[in-house]
């Protein structure tokens, strides 16, 4: 059992607050992705769990044991770094064996475990090379193998794929998912790449300015963003937002269209819709087409609604031209609402 509990963890660097009392529980064997733009505190949080950074306040528990005062070596974790951190003076074999030798395992066991993890990561033919003789992708495999060989309770990954080229990243992503699911370790994975997050995660914790804005399954995060930031950060192209003014209690006027919405005392809230949840149909939002980008599978239309940018992913058979006026009708069950002051979702 290696459930991770992060309790009210805060981190300040001088006057700058990197983390504001973060709470997060990651259940045993869960793959949790910390997603956010650079500087949001996701790496800091990971390093606090690893023990490479001390929290200013709060507690970290792994498997029912409080570990925030322990050095990294006593936490039962293994970490994969963004720049691989493969020891250049050791062979691949000795790199993978490094932690096992620190545990003083007998040579036969070391040998066995190194070979097994090397096979798992498909690097068994590289065991006697040095890191200088490896490609970036191979180095990353060594780094992952080194972490797996430790058979840790928790694997921490800090943007492990961001230094790889696009094709390799795709390949490694799928492989990582398989290997980590098979190893049954609890994983925290930090990334700024939303596609990576969506494809790998059991749950995504979206971070923004030192806070966890939403922690939920990838589909939930995508479908029901808990805050405006989540909607605008996740999804490519991102969610569309238009101001909505109160018509009657429970219905709102959005760019000339009246829509059913939440009951609220506020006079103005924000209407939000994902670009792919729009259809060309009468009685919708009145939009003037600015740019049309045929992308093969779909056509991306960038339009102007009340002076704001508004994107729609439409069927590739759509024949819209710049300057056309379209009526874009949102799918009713996909419409979301946000409070413009708190930025939180309204129901």
């Amino acid at each position, binding site marked *: 059992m290696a459930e991770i509990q992060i309790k009210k963890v805060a981190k300040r660097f001088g006057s700058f607050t990197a983390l504001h009392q973060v709470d997060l529980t990651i259940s045993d064997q869960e793959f949790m992705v910390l997603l956010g733009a650079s500087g949001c505190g996701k790496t800091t949080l990971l390093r606090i769990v*690893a*023990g*490479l950074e001390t929290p200013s306040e709060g507690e970290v528990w792994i498997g029912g044991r409080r570990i925030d005062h322990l*050095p*990294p*070596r006593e936490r039962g*974790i*293994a*970490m994969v*770094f*963004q*720049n691989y*951190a493969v*020891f*250049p*003076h050791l062979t691949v074999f000795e790199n993978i064996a*490094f*932690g096992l030798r*620190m*545990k003083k395992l007998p040579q036969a066991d070391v040998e066995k475990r190194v070979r097994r993890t090397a096979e798992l990561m498909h690097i068994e033919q590289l065991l006697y090379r040095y890191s200088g003789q490896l490609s970036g992708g191979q180095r990353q495999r060594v780094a992952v193998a*080194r972490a797996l060989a*430790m058979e840790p309770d928790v694997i*921490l990954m800090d943007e492990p794929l961001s230094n790889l080229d696009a094709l390799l990243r795709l390949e490694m992503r799928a492989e990582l998912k398989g290997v980590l699911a098979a190893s049954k370790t609890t994983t925290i994975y930090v990334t700024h790449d939303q596609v990576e997050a969506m494809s790998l995660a059991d749950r995504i914790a979206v971070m923004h300015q030192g806070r966890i804005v939403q922690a939920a399954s990838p589909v939930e995060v995508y479908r029901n963003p808990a805050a405006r930031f989540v909607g605008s950060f996740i999804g490519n192209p991102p969610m569309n937002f238009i101001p909505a003014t109160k018509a009657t209690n429970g219905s709102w006027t959005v760019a000339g269209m009246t829509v059913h919405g939440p009951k609220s005392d506020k006079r103005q809230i924000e209407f939000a819709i994902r670009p792919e949840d729009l259809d060309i149909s009468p009685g919708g939002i009145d939009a003037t087409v600015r740019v049309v980008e045929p992308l093969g599978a779909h056509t991306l239309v960038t339009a102007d609604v009340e002076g704001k940018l508004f994107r729609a992913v439409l069927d590739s058979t759509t024949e819209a031209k710049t300057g056309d006026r379209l009526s874009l009708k949102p799918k009713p069950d996909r419409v979301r609402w946000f409070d413009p002051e708190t930025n939180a979702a309204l129901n």
Partner: protein
Amino acid sequence: MTAVTSDAPATAYPEVRKARNWLLIAIVVVLCVWVLLPIYLLLVNALSSPNEVTGFPKRFWPSFDTGSLAFFVNFAGVAKALWNSVLVAVFTMIMSIGIGAPAGYALSRFDFPGKEAFRFLVLMTRAFPLPLLALPLAVMFIRTGLDDTAFGLAIVHTTLALPFAVLITFSLFSGIPVELEEAAWTLGCTRFQAFWKVVMPLALPGIAASAVFAFTISWNEVFAAAVLTIENRTLTAFLLQSLNVSPLYLKFAGGFALVVPALIFIFAVRKYLFAMWGIANR
């Protein structure tokens, strides 16, 4: 290294560019001659027989006669002075690395109050001329009984070599990614184990280079050596004292014995010295 020529505007007249190139070449040649000519004369004369040194005309190539050198080596006191020089230089080497490398590591890995001031002060130690310090030092050394000992002189040489040791090891440790250490911590190492198993093997060639440089500084130093030792002269102090009254060929042989080891050492570690000055090493 194309910066000099590419600085010239593209529209410059060819003659101007040509003249500029000639000027550059001339400066390079003068500088080379400035450095190499004395070394050449030293080599030629040291490797000639005593008669050839005083004779005229000179030969362009030395006769590779070891007469001068043999005479020098057998000269009374040379062997002892040589031994003293080595002893002092080794002490200096050990102390400046023993103190300098931890300081360099601390500078590269930790943020502490006064870090910049510390770095500045390390360099400042080179701002005080040794003659200014020599007299008070001599007095103090006599009082504490450190005068005329290899260890006492090594302390002074260590203060001379220390700034370089700190700066070289600082750039050395800065070049080793901190993630390597962090990875070692997560793999079960204590701070010290991580340093010993990961940082040390990677830094060792550079540390050796910095040690050799400290050795060379001590080996070449003459002023403190002359002031602070009487019986236990180092080679430099010994030569300074005895050679201004000795024949020409002996001076050349002595110079040769001093310069050649220093040159070889510096040449061996040049890569790391360039790194210290921030010149990209290839």
